């Protein structure tokens, strides 16, 4: 009996809460809020918040054309694999106290899992056979390359700080990082972690392919790069996975640097005097809400403002920017963490 219950619980995790439905709704909502904020910053009225939902369902209704030069199965399968991998990554990221599967993976693994959605775009573009897609996937690969080094440094710095504090040398497990922050306060408050947080903020638009770093899907120069030949439902799945990636990166940032907020919520609930089962549920809801709010603020900070204010970088400027400025920031925090500050 417990096996069925267990299986059901896993199914709920995968399909409902931190899984598909939650990602679908919050991802598209974040994308809608981002487009609205960018419009407001340009003194425009901007599309309604639910515009990404309309876009997604319209694309589902469109006809899916497969060009004769494309190889059909990879062309159709690539977006689905990318979306599935993104949903699975979201399962590993703990929402403050609650963590669905977080004992299964750690941050280096998440670093590598983040490659799969980007690879699904590359494979989809390669499968479509169009030369625009060829240029697009070569730029997409350079973008991954440039985001990888600073992301590695940030994760090593966090692993070192938490590992040293917990006394086991290095700790890559996300749950333990969050628990550490619960006891000793969020990592954002530590001096050595500030440059790492700043570096991570600069990585988010690059990793998700947002405006200043979207040389890979530049709709003006190379007709949306790898997505040039996509139409209908596969294109909708790609736009959806783009939106969910924003959610994944921002919630990863919250888990890594704002873990201590969970303790604050618990104290708040304790203050209100709610006890017993209700308290657990309340904390759970509060956690989700606070996570969503943090994600919105972070999306505004690192995606919308940067989108409204900057122009698109050429691909080698993007690479140079990431491997000098952002890597420098990350290196500072790594060295500080190394010498135990």
């Amino acid at each position, binding site marked *: 009996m417990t096996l069925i219950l267990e299986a059901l619980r896993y199914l709920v995790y995968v399909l409902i809460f931190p899984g598909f439905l939650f990602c679908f709704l919050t991802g598209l909502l974040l994308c809608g809020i981002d487009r609205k904020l960018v419009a407001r910053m340009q003194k425009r009225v901007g599309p309604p918040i639910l515009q990404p939902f309309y876009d997604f369902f319209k694309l589902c209704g469109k006809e899916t054309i497969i060009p004769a030069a494309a190889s059909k199965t990879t062309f159709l399968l690539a977006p689905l694999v990318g979306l599935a991998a993104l949903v699975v990554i979201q399962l590993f990221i703990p929402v403050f106290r609650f963590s669905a599967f977080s004992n*299964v993976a750690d941050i280096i693994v998440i670093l590598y899992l983040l490659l799969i959605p980007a690879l699904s775009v590359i494979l989809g573009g390669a499968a479509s056979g169009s030369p625009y897609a060829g240029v697009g996937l070569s730029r997409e*690969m*350079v973008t991954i*390359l440039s985001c990888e080094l600073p992301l590695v440094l940030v994760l090593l710095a966090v692993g*070192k700080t938490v590992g040293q504090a917990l006394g086991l040398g290095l700790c890559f497990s996300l749950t333990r990082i969050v628990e550490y922050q619960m006891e000793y306060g969020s990592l954002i408050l530590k001096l050595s972690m500030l440059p790492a947080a700043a570096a991570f903020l600069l990585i988010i638009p690059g990793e998700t392919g947002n405006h200043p770093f979207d040389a890979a899907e530049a709709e003006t120069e190379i007709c949306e790069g790898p997505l040039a030949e996509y139409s209908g*439902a596969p294109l909708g799945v790609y736009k959806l996975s783009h939106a969910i990636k924003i959610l994944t990166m921002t919630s990863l940032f919250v888990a890594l640097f704002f873990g201590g907020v969970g303790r604050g919520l618990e104290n708040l609930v304790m203050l209100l005097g709610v006890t017993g089962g209700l308290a657990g549920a309340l904390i759970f809801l509060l956690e989700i809400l606070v996570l969503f709010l943090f994600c919105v603020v972070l999306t505004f900070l690192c995606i919308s403002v940067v989108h409204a204010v900057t122009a698109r970088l050429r691909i080698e400027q993007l690479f140079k920017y990431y491997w000098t400025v952002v890597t420098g920031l990350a290196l500072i925090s790594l060295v500080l963490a190394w010498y135990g500050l």
Partner: protein
Amino acid sequence: MNMLSLQHFPIYSVMVLFLGAFLVVVFGHNKVVRHSIALLATCASMLFMMALIKPVMLDGGIIAYWMGNRVPAGGYAIGIAMEVDAMSLFFGVLISTAVFVACIYSIQYMSHDDNVPQYYTLFLMLAGGVMGMVLTGDLFNMFIMVEILTFAAVALTAFRNTVTGALEAAFKYLVVGSIGSTCILAGTIVLYAQMHTLNLAQLSALIPDHFTTATKLAFALLYIGFSTKAFLVPFHPLAADAHGAAPASISLIISGVLTKCGIYGIIRLTYFLFQSMNLGTTQFLLVFVGSVSMFVCVTMALAQHDFKRLLAFHSISQIGYVLTAVGLSTALGLSAGVYHAMNHTIFKGLLFLAAGAVLHETGTTDLGKLGGLSKKMPHTTVLFLIGAAAISGIPPFNGFASKWMIYQATYQKAVESGNIGFLLVTIVALVTSTLTLASFVKVTQSVFFGQLPKELENVKEVPFGMRFAMGILALLCIATGLFPNLVTRYLTEPAATAVFHVGAYINAAMGSGYAETAMINPPLAAEPAFIESGIWSPISWLCLLMIALLAITVVALSGKYDKVSLGDVSDTKYQLFYGGEANFASQVGSDDMFWGFKYNWRHYFSFMHELHSGVVNDYALWAVVALALAILYAFIVM
């Protein structure tokens, strides 16, 4: 099957191969006989090795077999010994499977060529040499086996002498390879002069107390000799030329197996003979050479525009990973390195066989002339993608499991030893893994996807035999990737512990108690701790991915995701969008991919371009300079 009857299996597995080589010469002109002899020989040697797994690996026994039963008398080992402990058996099993798969593949692959009997004789000689080198317990015997495999490999590189550059590559390989062999020979002679014995076990008992300058010279010579065989940094251009010209099954053997012999030799040298791994200096030497060859070869691979040369540079960069992990001399590091060596043989073999398939069908491996092969060769594309994902460390595959262990080992070593150098190694390792992914994206786009050029119109799928061989390797890729804990517990950890139990190794050969008497400080026999700081179970991850993928496909199919509209090129609707132009063949050239990265590193690439001049005397010069540096290093720093 008690210990006694198992004793003969190592010599059986070596001799079967040499016997097969002899028989092929005699009866080789008939196709069926030739193929059956080759298959039987390789299969027999693999079965002998498999049979030894249970006793040696799991029960921890060590087989010491004296040729002609000349047991050591009076404390001196006169006879030639074959000593098989967990480490050599691990490499033995790995090599025999790779050789067996290569044999299956080459049956159909070599059908177009002429004078094939000579191919199989050389092939079996090479296999015998490699098996002999890994299982032998005698230093001079190891040198002889190295000689056999080098000359067989040189002859096989030049087998298709019509291919441009084959003879020149073979000549280069011959020159630098023989420099390496002579270094090993010189080292053996110096050691023999000092220790008056050639038996590995006795040497590893005597050398640590006589750490004189002569033995240091021997160390340097042997190290350079074995690193030539493993194509490490100063000798890596050889590999690129050799693979470029050799037939694919031979490339599999050279990159998958020969380089492992070099690594095996270095492990024996540093952990057993000189037991110098606890010295910081040898660790620095190995880790430095490993990470330099890791980074240099991956960047060189990015600049290639020939499929096989690109794979060759990648195999050296993966060997760099293995050497870095081995050089850490922590239990986790050694097991990660050995695990990555196994994975490398599997996925590199798969990639080389895929390259062979492309060459077999289209006649060229130039990335510029290929394209769109996935429509014509779907199975090869899928198998290639599995290999590419494995080498670039995508989670469910085996490359990721071993690379992830390597990152943890280096980072742990950095934390324990407190010196930031190892941290730099972890970062270089992670960046190199992404660069590997980049170069395999380049190959995928320019060979298998993109536009199908006119002249490749009538390309067909590869015959079943070749696909079957690739299929075995692909299955192994996935299997070892999904069950890392099984592989580590039954294969790599016994091998790693065997390396730390030098005393047991010596006693097995020289009779119990010899190690304690002969050595002042008997080797540490501490139980190595395999602590892993991260948790990662690929099985549960894969189940989650499958559930999510299933859910998404069900939702998609209900939303009529597969109701797609297909049509042929004549209707303009299904032509590619070129900004309105008519359909014309335009493929993103393989060497202007990643323009952004290459532009930022243009000084580095131009410097590398001049360095790799392709002239044989440059490479010979490098070999000698590396030897000189190694000797200097051994004298001053060791």
